């Protein structure tokens, strides 16, 4: 490894001899960073959000132009770059256009894996081309960056696999004795190797060890996690991927990478915190990967009697109300019922009934997932209300229609300290005048908890597949008067 040009610390042209180019590239990067910040700013409103994408794209184009102007890139290098970018774009287009909205969580998890892979590989290349002449501090940053890249890569692949419900991957959380000890030992091994390298960057063998330990830790991190925790995990991996990109910026002396990485990391962090709050988990627990299955000790429970309603009864009640709030859960999306739900809402609105949707933060499988699924079904976004917005309104609501949601409407979260979901913020649907629950059977939800809402005297159960039930209700409500094709 001696007969090649070592990679320079900074890829920038020398500011003292090549002033013009230096300024041009720096300004292009600055413009790129501004584009990124603007794109996030415009995301704060659905009306301006698409303009935000445009700003981000402009930022990207400028950054790429700036990079291609760097004098370190050789003529053959340009050919390789063009080929690699074309291959990447060819894979990226179908991943961007063909993935269905229900598969969005695994799609996002997969892209975290790609991002981490790129960051990790660049870090490794940087190490091999500049060692042993690496400052201890820089080496430590580089070591952490490579570890993070490796663990986010496998962690995200595992998360994507679990979400996609890949056959050979267990969906249930896997817990075994000394699990945490093993996890910490693997992570500790990586940390020790980083320290060794910081002391003596010539210890080249330590890099493969770091990579393997990171890859193994990523797998171990996701093994004990069940489906209900996935939204938090995706957000957390997002934060880690961002931090890895920012660290890479430190190592490559590139401020643009630092800015983009910091923005991505912060976004992941904010989303993780929101998800934690929504599921009543401490952030520290999640940060150290100590989440996973809290084994529910659910012994004998008083099961009351339930009341069920036929379709024409249910239709009659809905038709005669003023305000109906629909509470969708992931079960609705699994049944592919969102279009039928919107049709039902349209039918009700024709009868003069006001319809709103109450979206719990963990209603889908990633932050904001349910909103996307309903928007796809052409529900206007003004009708999609957050938990905080809708909760004070429930006392004025005539009928709440619960569709495939379970734990997020369980009043036990408010008062039953023994319940595993105790303390979790819920939609206060039991404050409405009456509640209608559409359910396939009396099976408990994700947390394996019986839902006392079903035994509430105001609750009517409507049994059946969500899609079929919606179809029946639409027929009942639109009735014999006009024939709407459903």
């Amino acid at each position, binding site marked *: 490894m001696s007969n090649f040009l070592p990679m320079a610390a900074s890829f920038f042209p020398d500011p003292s001899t090549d002033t013009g180019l230096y300024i041009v590239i720096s300004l292009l990067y600055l413009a790129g960073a501004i584009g990124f910040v603007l794109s996030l*700013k415009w995301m704060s409103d659905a009306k301006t959000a698409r303009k935000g994408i445009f700003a981000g794209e402009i930022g990207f184009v400028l950054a790429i132009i700036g990079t291609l102007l760097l004098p370190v890139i050789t003529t053959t290098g340009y050919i390789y770059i063009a080929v690699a970018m074309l291959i990447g774009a060819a*894979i990226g287009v179908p991943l961007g256009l063909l993935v269905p909205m229900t598969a969005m969580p695994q799609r996002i998890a997969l892209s975290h894996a790609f991002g981490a892979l790129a960051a990790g590989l660049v870090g490794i290349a940087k190490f091999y081309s500049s060692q042993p002449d690496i400052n201890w501090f820089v080496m430590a940053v580089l070591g952490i960056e490579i570890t993070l890249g490796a663990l986010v890569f496998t962690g995200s692949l595992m998360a994507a696999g679990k979400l996609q419900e890949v056959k050979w991957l267990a969906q249930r959380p896997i817990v075994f004795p000394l699990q945490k000890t093993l996890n910490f030992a693997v992570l500790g091994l990586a940390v020790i190797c980083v320290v060794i390298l910081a002391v003596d960057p010539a210890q080249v063998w330590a890099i493969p060890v770091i990579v393997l330990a990171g890859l193994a830790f990523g797998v171990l991190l996701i093994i004990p996690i069940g489906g209900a925790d996935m939204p938090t995990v995706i957000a957390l991996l997002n934060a880690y991927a961002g931090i890895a990109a920012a660290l890479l910026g430190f190592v490559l002396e590139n401020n643009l990478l630092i800015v983009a990485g910091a923005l991505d990391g912060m976004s992941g962090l904010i989303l993780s915190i929101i998800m934690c709050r929504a599921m009543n988990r401490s952030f520290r627990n999640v940060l150290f990967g100590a989440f996973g299955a809290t084994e529910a000790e659910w012994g004998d429970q008083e099961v009351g009697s339930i009341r069920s309603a036929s379709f024409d009864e249910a239709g009659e009640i809905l038709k005669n109300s003023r305000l109906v709030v629909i509470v969708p859960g992931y079960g609705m999306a699994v049944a592919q019922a969102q279009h039928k739900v919107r049709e039902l809402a349209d039918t009700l609105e024709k009868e003069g009934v006001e319809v709103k949707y109450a979206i719990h933060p963990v209603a889908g499988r990633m932050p904001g997932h349910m909103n996307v699924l309903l928007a796809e079904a052409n529900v206007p976004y003004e009708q999609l209300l957050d938990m905080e917005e809708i909760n004070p309104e429930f006392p004025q609501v005539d009928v709440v229609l619960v569709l495939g949601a379970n734990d997020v409407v369980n009043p036990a979260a408010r008062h039953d300290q023994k319940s595993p979901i105790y303390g979790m913020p819920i939609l206060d649907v039991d404050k409405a005048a009456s509640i209608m629950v559409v359910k396939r059977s009396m099976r408990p939800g994700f947390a394996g908890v019986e839902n006392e809402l079903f035994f509430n005297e105001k609750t009517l159960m409507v049994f059946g597949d969500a899609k079929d039930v919606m179809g029946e209700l639409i027929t009942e409500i639109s009735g014999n008067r006009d024939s709407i094709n459903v």
Partner: protein
Amino acid sequence: MSVSVEFIMTGLFVFALAGFLGFETIRRVPRLLHTPLMALTNALSAISLVGSIVVLGGQYTAYTTILGFVAVIASMINVVGGFLITDKMLKMFKPREKPKKPEPAEAEAAS
């Protein structure tokens, strides 16, 4: 020549300020748009493409060139796929249809 400690210190400034800016900006993104937000930040963080391009284009060793090649492909997937999917999602978020289409000025006055 290795990375200077000097740059790392400047970088920390940039990181801290960008972090605060990001926090204040992203905090304002409504829950409605959190999935598109994730897709967008994912595309943005694929800016490691810049580093990947340098590693590949700089032609240091055969080894780093291979790493760079894979890295450019991986980050390019995220750039292209990330922006496309964010746009596809945002296109679906529509406001309530107005019965008739008033002029923007009229709509302002009406509301």
